[in-house]
């Protein structure tokens, strides 16, 4: 009897380590859906989540794409924000002061339009002590190579990771695009080039048309599809990548409920990111953390590592 109470009172350990940084739990926001953290501070306690992931940063401020930039689709949304961000200087000056007051690891997501730019940003981020890790977004077109997306070509992906690695002492997470024939090839390439962890997936490229105006519903014509619609594709890719690499994997794509997050953990994601769901419910991450904890209690799991990768297949 007292054993039962003991068990009920002992909370399961949800802490995980990704690329050398310790997270109090495996739940964090996906880049671009949580601003610079401050935007959501009125709605949830930022010290309850595992980490804060910033909007993608670039060397110079970036204005982003023409509007309309977003459109809802069935159980998903398209976005073509165009990586609008304040740039690294303004980030340090205007966004870091707030982030410093929060006792939660900050992961800076970043990108470049050329190989060199990737290197430059990496150098700059490496010098900011309060940044716990960086997340490298390679789903961007390489303007010098005629716009082919870095992340769709294993060679280009490897090159950019190698370069960034050169400038970076901090843990390096590389975020993959799902718009590829075989994600394991890219995953292996970036692991070999020095990634400490892999995050997947970014958005699937999609399009939607306003039948009355006969124009694409977003000005950029195509956009990135996110939300629950893409979850099965994301779970599949995370599963494939976990089977391929030995660095930890962060699962992303369509996570709204605790059950969704658990699917990713079970296939082997060591942590997960919540994107579009933040828009739907700003407290979604807290519900997910509580739900994971309750699931562990219900299933008699005292450490989340017993759950991670426990897929039976």
């Amino acid at each position, binding site marked *: 009897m007292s054993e039962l109470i003991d068990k009920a009172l002992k909370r399961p350990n949800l802490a995980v380590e990704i690329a050398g940084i310790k997270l109090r739990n495996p739940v964090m926001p996906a880049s671009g859906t*949580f601003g610079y953290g401050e935007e959501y501070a009125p709605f949830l306690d930022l010290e309850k989540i595992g980490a804060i992931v910033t909007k993608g940063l670039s060397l110079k401020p970036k204005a*982003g794409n023409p509007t309309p930039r*977003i459109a809802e689709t069935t159980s998903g949304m398209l976005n073509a924000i165009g990586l609008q961000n304040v740039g690294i200087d303004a980030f340090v000056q205007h966004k870091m002061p707030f982030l410093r007051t929060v006792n939660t690891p900050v992961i800076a997501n970043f990108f470049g339009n050329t190989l060199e730019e990737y290197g430059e940003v990496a150098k700059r981020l490496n010098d900011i002590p309060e940044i716990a890790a960086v997340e490298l977004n390679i789903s961007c077109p390489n303007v010098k190579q005629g716009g082919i997306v870095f992340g769709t070509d294993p060679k280009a992906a490897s090159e950019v990771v190698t370069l960034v690695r050169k400038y970076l002492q901090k843990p390096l997470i590389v975020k993959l695009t799902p718009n590829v024939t075989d994600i394991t090839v890219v995953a292996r390439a970036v692991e070999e080039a020095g990634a400490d962890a892999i995050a997947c997936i970014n958005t699937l490229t999609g399009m939607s048309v306003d039948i*009355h105006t006969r124009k694409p519903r977003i000005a950029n014509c195509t956009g990135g599809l996110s939300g629950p619609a893409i979850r099965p594709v994301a779970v599949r890719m995370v599963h494939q990548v976990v089977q391929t690499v030995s660095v930890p994997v962060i699962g992303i794509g369509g996570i709204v409920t605790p059950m969704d997050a658990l699917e990713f953990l079970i296939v082997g994601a060591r942590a997960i990111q919540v994107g579009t769901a933040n828009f739907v419910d700003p407290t979604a991450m807290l519900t997910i953390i509580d739900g994971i904890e309750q699931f562990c209690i219900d299933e008699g799991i005292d450490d989340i590592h017993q759950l991670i990768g426990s897929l039976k297949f």
Partner: protein
Amino acid sequence: MLMRHSLIRESKQIMKNYRTKIISNQEISPGYFRMKVLAPGFGENAHPGQFVMFRVQRSLPPLLRRPFGIFRTGFLPADCDGLPPVEFVEIVYKVVGSGTSIMAELHQGDRVELLGPLGNGFDCTSRQGEKILVGGGIGLVPLYMLAGELIENGCSVRLLMGGRSRDDIFAVTEFERLGVETYISTDDGTLGEEGLVTQVLERKLQKYPAAEVYSCGPMAMLNAVHNICLEHNTPLQVSLEESMACGVGACLGCVVKGAGHTEEKPSYLCSCKVGPVFKSQYLDWSALAQNNSDCGGCA
């Protein structure tokens, strides 16, 4: 209603996600509904021109929340002596698509969620003078609280209400009760003057050349209002309706081009955070007029 600030900083601290329920939901004109939602503490933080992000139901669809202007806030008498009065926020919406169709089916007691008050509302600190409010269809919504505030401040307020037909005109009595002088025009002449609300604006500006104008409505109307005000050198504030995903400045989906925007030096303003109300001189009107031509949602 007395202590309000147009500073973003302050309203930011007190916005909240209300998990709440519907007090009432009624059709007030064909296709237009008024919904009162229980929201304790909402009123003292809400500023004219601010909005809420409304979550229709816990299940999909729709996936994203929908933005709605705050029509008014207030108190209903308590259900029972000894209980505090019931604070509500009221929105008025037009059924245009999937989300608003589901909303129209909701009943008293149904659970909903709303995030707010959000955004930067009208600058209405001015303590006197002539104010002309121009509202088209559902664009009347944010003008009600604005009118109330302006009148409280001692201004004289005229409201030009426009719509396609009489069905698009609502809340006339409420506006008049505030002490607003109302002028109605409809495209088809089924209510008030036949023609565009901008004709009326022309006349009023001739009569009150020192007036300030506040406007909300379809982009074509706002654009015309802007041009008239430009001509008359009249200060104008407009409330815009961009598609939104987050409503809190996190997704950058809702931006509009700022004045002076160029391909080389682009300037995008977040309409959920810097707006939805903008002083007209800060906007790039040529871009606005174009980009929003496909917004068929509003009257």
